[in-house]
């Protein structure tokens, strides 16, 4: 089963503004870009063409893995606003 189908099972109330704010200049220098693989919701994608990190913050499961794993420690990671983000119905 692909990840999109998994994420489709979740209830989200996305904000208009991202709660995940990497320092994009640092991301360009990052060698491993481990957030791209580590994120369980594939929030991060690397765009080879524009050499930019894409942040699909709407899919975030709010686990915090990227915050800890970010090797350049350049991610400003906050919880989404109180009415926003993911809601687990099972947990």
């Amino acid at each position, binding site marked *: *089963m692909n*990840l999109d*189908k*998994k*994420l489709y*099972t*979740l209830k989200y109330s996305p904000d208009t503004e991202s709660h995940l704010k990497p320092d994009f200049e640092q991301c360009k220098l990052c060698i*491993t870009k*481990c957030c791209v*693989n*580590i994120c*369980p*919701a*594939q929030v991060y994608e690397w765009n080879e063409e524009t050499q930019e990190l894409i942040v699909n913050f709407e899919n975030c*499961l*709010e*686990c*915090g*893995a990227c*915050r*800890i*794993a970010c*090797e350049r*420690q350049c991610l400003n990671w*906050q*919880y*989404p*606003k*109180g*009415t926003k*983000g*993911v*809601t*687990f*119905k*099972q*947990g």
Partner: protein
Amino acid sequence: MLKRENKTDVIIVGAGPAGISCAITLARAGKEVILIERGLFAGSKNVFGGAIYTQATKEIFPNFETEAPIERRNIEHNFAILGEEDSTTITYRKNDNSSYSVIRAKFDRWAAEEAKKAGAYIVEETVVRELIKEKNQVIGVKTELEEYFADIVILADGVNSLLAKQIGLRKDIDTKDVALSVKEVIKLDNQIINQRFKLKDNEGAIVEIFGGPMLGMLGLGFMYTNTDSVTIGLGITLNELAENNYRPYEILEKLKQHPTIAPLIEGGTLKEYSAHLIPEGGYKKIPKLCDNGVMIIGDAAMLVNNLHWEGTNLAMISGKLAAETAVEAIDKNDFSKKTLSNYEKKLKKSFILKDLKTYRELMDVMHSRKNAFLCYYMKKINAFFEMFTSVNGIPKKENYHKFIKSIFTDRKISELFKDIWAIVKLLWSILI
């Protein structure tokens, strides 16, 4: 201190098992307590493996077995050691009620309602952005909209605890001290679950999974049975994932396809996918547990006994002990670090810090010997049973000799001595 309008005895941040247990204990003692939860409702941001433990839960909710939304009563523990294709499983079964499977979104919501009935105020959909300090003392919290003040603030804001970090009680977590867990709740017919797991009525089974797609990784899998769904998931240390560019959900997919696991979930439909971090650092990584006007409980204090899959019980009891400390502090009108450090003393006297201390060396040993204990010996156990069950005309004595010889020749002999030394050291630290 200035008298403030919106001031209460205690503010608790985070409505998980720790925060709710803390709130209800305070409310029952007649103290004014506000529990602030960032989700739509208590439980809506909470994820765990699958079990609550009867003894600890009863300390907080004496009648939970008849009143709470529980799923199944666990009567069977399976320890499944998966090879690439084969597996060896040890099953312990007893008609017992030491743990129950629950759905967190239902259970936590129920528990929070109980706290509300006891007199706690619950403020939902509210994120605490920072702690307010005055003269080296935590005196309140700042949410997105307003400020709340309290004599004591208790942090139950989970494994990421940005608040404990803000006031310097906790350092950044190292990637080797935390596991990333992904899990799926898979809908299956009640009768099919009972057939596949050999259960009747509301009996439940737990499967602890070693190896398989996690061979050689510091990671474990788990399955729990719910009333009409099965939970399957795994947790892998974050440094392992980061260094090897593994995608956690892809490893879970592989686990679901393992020949031993696949038949258990066949035909099910995915109800919900989720992910969460698990604090794995153990005793050595427990943060400072209190300061002037503040205490830390549950996952925020890294209170998880990973070897025994225990977390919710440590959370609940740490919440209760912090509440008891807060009651004493309120009665004395003394919220200093010195008074609140009674919480740490209570934790030390309880099973919580005693157990974590018992396993203080475990993670270091596992990190340094993971290829041996989480790969080589896992494969060796399966290889033994493959040999033992094979009927191929080869005399058994030859098989035994070959197997024993392989233990000395598969790897450098020094590896074997390192393993023995690691086990001796580990057992010494656990038992002595």
